[in-house]
């Protein structure tokens, strides 16, 4: 019911919205919850497990019940709290977990079955038969117990992430937060004020209070105006600080568009901020807790403070006949405010025998509410008077106050535990629990308005080591409470309405010996719902304390973890989604390759052309054609992705001698050498060629996959191991476009584009040097990864596309053309070159037949450890080639395992594995590389290749790990 003369809503801006298919009216400044209550809607959802009818309990982010799906289609937002959802024109909300309708939900049968569905029921009930759990029980239970669901479709919207920095982060903008922000702002500090609500002011918007002689909201407006005018202050509404992390870092979710009918062009739906704060004041307020009694979850039972919020902020009376049940002064305030607003208060029930309160309404001191009545909405309550007599009291709304819990959550995110305060019967933050953070106001157990103002100013002054500012006048009453948690009696008294956990469940946990608070939590699932037990945890601790004969601080608290309120996963991801999930590295020949219809393969971040299908060709046909083309004429492949590191300095040669197993100081200028690198533990790290361009100038190439790792390793060697060496290096992978030109006609092609003489005399096999490539200064390396007469030609990257086109055009004129990664792989397997399929981090130089490349004349990284027993010799699996006995055998794939001919197939008899396999068009059958136990001594033997994942077995002859041109004549010719 809307009340005239109350609230801060904008009555000149009416809006329409839809709830479960029906249209209603509200005002700008309403939340969905306040608008629903203004329309006298109390039933707003069904509970998680028992499908009990539920209503709005709170007016804030701690709301356990009022979870709705907002919006329609792909971008529909499930599990949104109606208490924080701003109303806008055209908003569409749907209730959750009810079918066919909220009023008639067939799953409500669960409520009748409740005696069988208590805590842990599924552990006990669905044990047999075991196999049915995954297929039947679990899916059925998950379907029955549920919240809203995502659409499963791409919402087409973007999220963002960002960094913010400040001297003082103030979390919460109630009286304490505003004073903290003012203190920092006036001292010229960089201040961020984060408020989860869409309005600044906290409880000052929800109470009839004055600050500095003005109504609360007016004082808030004046403070916000001053802060907004200060260039050193950033005001962030709709921003929830969700977690506290190391080094003064805080996570914060800023809702950008949930209050708008549609997302503005280019705007993110939400932004996840990482805030680096010098100091922090936590002024996040407190949550009012409930009292457990029978059927206390009936729609209409709500926090006493929430009733005041709806009254003062939204001009809404949540009921026409309101009763109040309170164990502290706060409930009385609700009754007084309602009476002042002309709302009927049918009774105030306080379990304390005496208070100083005297209101013009029925007051029942020493009484308790034993039961709420009204299935779909509260009708009346049963009250037990001090003399034991039970009476019925009319009420369509029951305002409950069981005391206040300071929002200690953030102070526990770095493993801190809160302290119990007897004065307020609640946990308060332990000072220093988060370094640099001071709690103030209600978050620190300071419940009076003046106390909050004062402690906010003091906290900021202490944090920043400055003088506090003057504190304005305000209410400064003391807070009186007598702890009261639970009205004993039959039936179910709910503690955690979101997960449907009742006092009975906590008792069951105790009975089954799950008495540690963490065990109780997991057994009952109390506090494990999306509200993380903001309303329920302390009540459950009190019950457990009583059952175990301990006091509450002894029972302890469960662990609060980030996030404080739910954060969409998409917000953490920010822009790292869809096509921008990670960078795309494109080769210089990318445009050309796409023009030629290439299929691509991702290699790390790189997109490399895998094959170039001609009409009618599948990948294998294209690969075979490209392979044969290279063997017979000439092929061009983009090899820019290989890591290129330019190394210079007087000690460059010494440095390379230490990082490679073999010698590079003896390499002549103008020559290239193949090099092998080990890790310090003696296993192979990477391989590649290294060219000496000058006396003090080398260019190292690495494999595509290990380019980053090798660069970091070189930096380690130079900075940490041998800083005395005068050597510098830099990655030039992106600076040089490089193409392999391979095949019997390679020299014909190269001669056509390189100005210099490329005869065997000037550019012999493994020669290199600076050349002019079609008028551009470039580099030529006569190296081969195919076994053919081959070159790699490099030009500055900006000429890469032009050179790729020039090379391709000339290759095609010679009967050749482009080849991709698939053919490149076949060519290298035929020739016996290795890749990271072979050097996978588990093999030694000796395993791959390169033991003699570890020079005896010098030390190098990994040398000492490579000499350990067990890292070489017949017990090791060594690199061999495999050739199937049946040339038509198709089942030869990497990952298969090797066994002796007559051996049983067991892990114990395993003799090795296949690392690479392909169909060789050159030989007309499949070939493979494998690591075979003592393999070098077993050439000519026949082994079984067993592929358990494909269910195949193939007999193969063991060969030398090189099939093509073993004499190497083609390379040199």
């Amino acid at each position, binding site marked *: 019911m809307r009340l005239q003369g109350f609230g801060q809503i904008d009555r000149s801006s009416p809006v329409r919205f839809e709830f479960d298919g029906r249209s209603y009216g509200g005002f700008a400044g309403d939340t969905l919850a306040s608008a629903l209550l203004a329309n006298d809607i109390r039933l707003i959802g069904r509970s998680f497990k028992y499908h009990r009818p539920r209503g709005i309990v709170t007016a804030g982010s701690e709301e356990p019940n009022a979870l709705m799906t907002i919006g329609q289609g792909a971008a529909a937002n499930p599990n949104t709290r109606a208490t924080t959802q701003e109303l806008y024109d055209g908003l569409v909300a749907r209730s959750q977990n009810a079918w066919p309708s909220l009023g008639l939900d067939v799953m409500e049968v669960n409520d009748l079955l409740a005696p069988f569905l208590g805590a842990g029921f599924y552990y006990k009930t669905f044990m047999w038969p075991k196999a049915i759990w995954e297929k039947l029980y679990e899916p059925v239970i998950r379907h029955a117990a549920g919240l809203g669901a995502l659409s499963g479709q791409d919402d087409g919207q973007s999220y963002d992430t960002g*960094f913010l920095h400040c001297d003082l982060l103030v979390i919460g903008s109630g009286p304490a937060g505003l004073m903290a922000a003012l203190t920092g702002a006036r001292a010229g500090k960089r201040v961020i004020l984060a408020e989860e609500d869409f309005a600044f002011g906290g409880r000052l918007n929800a109470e009839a209070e004055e600050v500095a002689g003005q109504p609360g909201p007016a004082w808030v407006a004046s403070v916000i105006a001053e802060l907004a005018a200060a260039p050193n202050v950033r005001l962030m509404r709709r921003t929830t600080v969700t977690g506290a*992390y*190391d*080094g003064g*870092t805080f996570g914060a979710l800023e809702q950008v568009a949930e209050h708008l009918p549609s997302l503005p062009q280019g705007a993110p739906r939400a932004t996840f901020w*990482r805030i*680096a704060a010098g100091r922090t004041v936590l002024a996040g307020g407190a949550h009012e807790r409930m009292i457990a009694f029978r059927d206390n979850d009936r729609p209409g039972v709500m926090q006493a403070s929430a009733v005041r919020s709806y009254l003062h902020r939204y001009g809404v009376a949540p009921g026409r006949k309101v009763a109040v049940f309170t164990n502290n002064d706060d409930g009385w305030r609700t009754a007084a405010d309602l009476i002042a607003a002309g709302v009927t208060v049918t009774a105030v029930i306080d379990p304390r025998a005496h208070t100083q309160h005297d209101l013009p309404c029925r007051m029942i001191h020493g009484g308790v509410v034993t039961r709420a009545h009204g299935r779909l909405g509260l009708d009346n309550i049963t009250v037990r008077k001090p003399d034991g007599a039970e009476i019925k009291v009319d009420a369509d709304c029951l305002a409950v106050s069981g005391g206040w819990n300071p929002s200690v959550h953030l102070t526990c995110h770095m493993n801190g535990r809160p302290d119990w305060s007897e004065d307020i019967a609640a946990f308060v933050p332990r000072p220093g629990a988060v*370094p640099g953070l001071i709690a103030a106001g209600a978050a620190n157990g300071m419940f009076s308005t003046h106390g909050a103002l004062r402690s906010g100013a003091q906290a900021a002054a202490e944090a920043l080591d400055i003088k506090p500012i003057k504190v304005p006048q305000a209410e400064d009453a003391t807070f009186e409470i007598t702890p009261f948690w639970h009205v004993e009696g039959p039936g179910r008294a709910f503690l955690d309405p979101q997960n449907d956990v009742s006092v009975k469940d906590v008792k069951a946990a105790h009975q089954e010996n799950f008495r540690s608070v963490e065990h109780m939590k997991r057994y009952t699932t109390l506090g494990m719902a999306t509200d993380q037990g903001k309303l329920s945890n302390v009540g459950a601790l009190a019950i457990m304390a009583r059952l175990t004969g301990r006091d509450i601080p002894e029972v302890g608290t469960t662990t609060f973890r980030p996030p404080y309120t739910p954060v969409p996963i998409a917000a953490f991801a920010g822009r790292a989604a869809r096509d921008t999930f990670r960078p795309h590295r494109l080769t210089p020949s990318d445009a050309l390759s796409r023009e030629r219809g290439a299929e691509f393969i991702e290699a790390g971040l790189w997109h490399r052309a895998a094959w170039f299908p001609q009409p009618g060709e599948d990948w294998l046909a294209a690969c075979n054609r490209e392979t044969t083309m290279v063997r017979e004429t000439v092929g061009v492949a983009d090899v820019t992705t290989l890591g290129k590191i330019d190394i210079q300095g007087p000690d460059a040669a010494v440095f390379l001698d230490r990082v490679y197993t073999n010698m590079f100081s003896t390499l002549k200028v103008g020559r290239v050498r193949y090099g092998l690198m080990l890790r*310090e*533990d003696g296993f192979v790290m990477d391989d590649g060629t290294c060219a000496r361009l000058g006396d003090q100038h080398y260019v190292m190439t690495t494999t595509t996959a290990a380019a980053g790792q090798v*660069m*970091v390793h070189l*930096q*380690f060697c130079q*900075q*940490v*191991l041998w*800083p005395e060496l005068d050597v510098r290096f830099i990655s030039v992978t992106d600076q040089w476009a490089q193409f392999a030109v391979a095949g019997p006609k390679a020299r014909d092609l190269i001669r056509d584009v390189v100005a210099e003489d490329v005869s065997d005399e000037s550019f012999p096999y493994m020669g290199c040097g600076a050349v002019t490539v079609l008028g551009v200064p470039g580099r030529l390396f006569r190296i081969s990864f195919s076994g053919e007469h081959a070159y790699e030609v490099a030009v500055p990257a900006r000429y890469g596309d032009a050179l790729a086109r020039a090379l391709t055009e000339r290759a095609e004129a010679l009967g050749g053309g482009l080849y991709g990664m698939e053919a490149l792989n076949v060519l290298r397997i035929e020739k016996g070159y290795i890749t990271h399929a072979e050097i996978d981090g588990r093999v030694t130089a000796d395993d791959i037949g390169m033991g003699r490349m570890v020079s005896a004349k010098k030390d190098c990284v990994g040398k*000492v*450890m490579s*000499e350990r027993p067990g890292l070489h010799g017949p017990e090791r699996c060594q690199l061999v080639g495999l050739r199937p006995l049946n040339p038509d055998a198709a089942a030869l794939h990497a990952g298969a395992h090797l066994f002796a001919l007559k051996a049983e197939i067991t892990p114990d008899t395993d003799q090795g594995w296949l690392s690479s396999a392909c169909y060789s068009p050159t030989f007309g059958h499949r070939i493979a590389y494998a690591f075979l136990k003592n393999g070098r001594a077993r050439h000519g033997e026949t082994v079984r290749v067993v592929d358990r994942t494909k269910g195949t077995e193939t007999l193969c002859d063991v060969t030398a790990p090189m099939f093509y041109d073993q004499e190497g004549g083609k390379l040199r010719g």
Partner: protein
Amino acid sequence: MRLTCPLCGPRDVREFSYRGDAVLTDRPTTPEGFHDYVHIRENPAGPHDELWHHGAGCGGWLKVRRDTVTHEVLSVALAREARS
């Protein structure tokens, strides 16, 4: 968490990667020391010297003294200068 790179200033931890115990700075000069150098690590609850690499920054290797219990960073130095 942030680290103050001696070359780049205070930067978010995501620019860095952890690269192991700082014993890696003391590469043995004789074969006997390598077993311990490669394999043997302390696992202290408290201050710990470790190596970090500023991969998304200057490429510097840093020697960081960090409390493994509180994550407090006690000192950061270039590894080349912090060698014993």
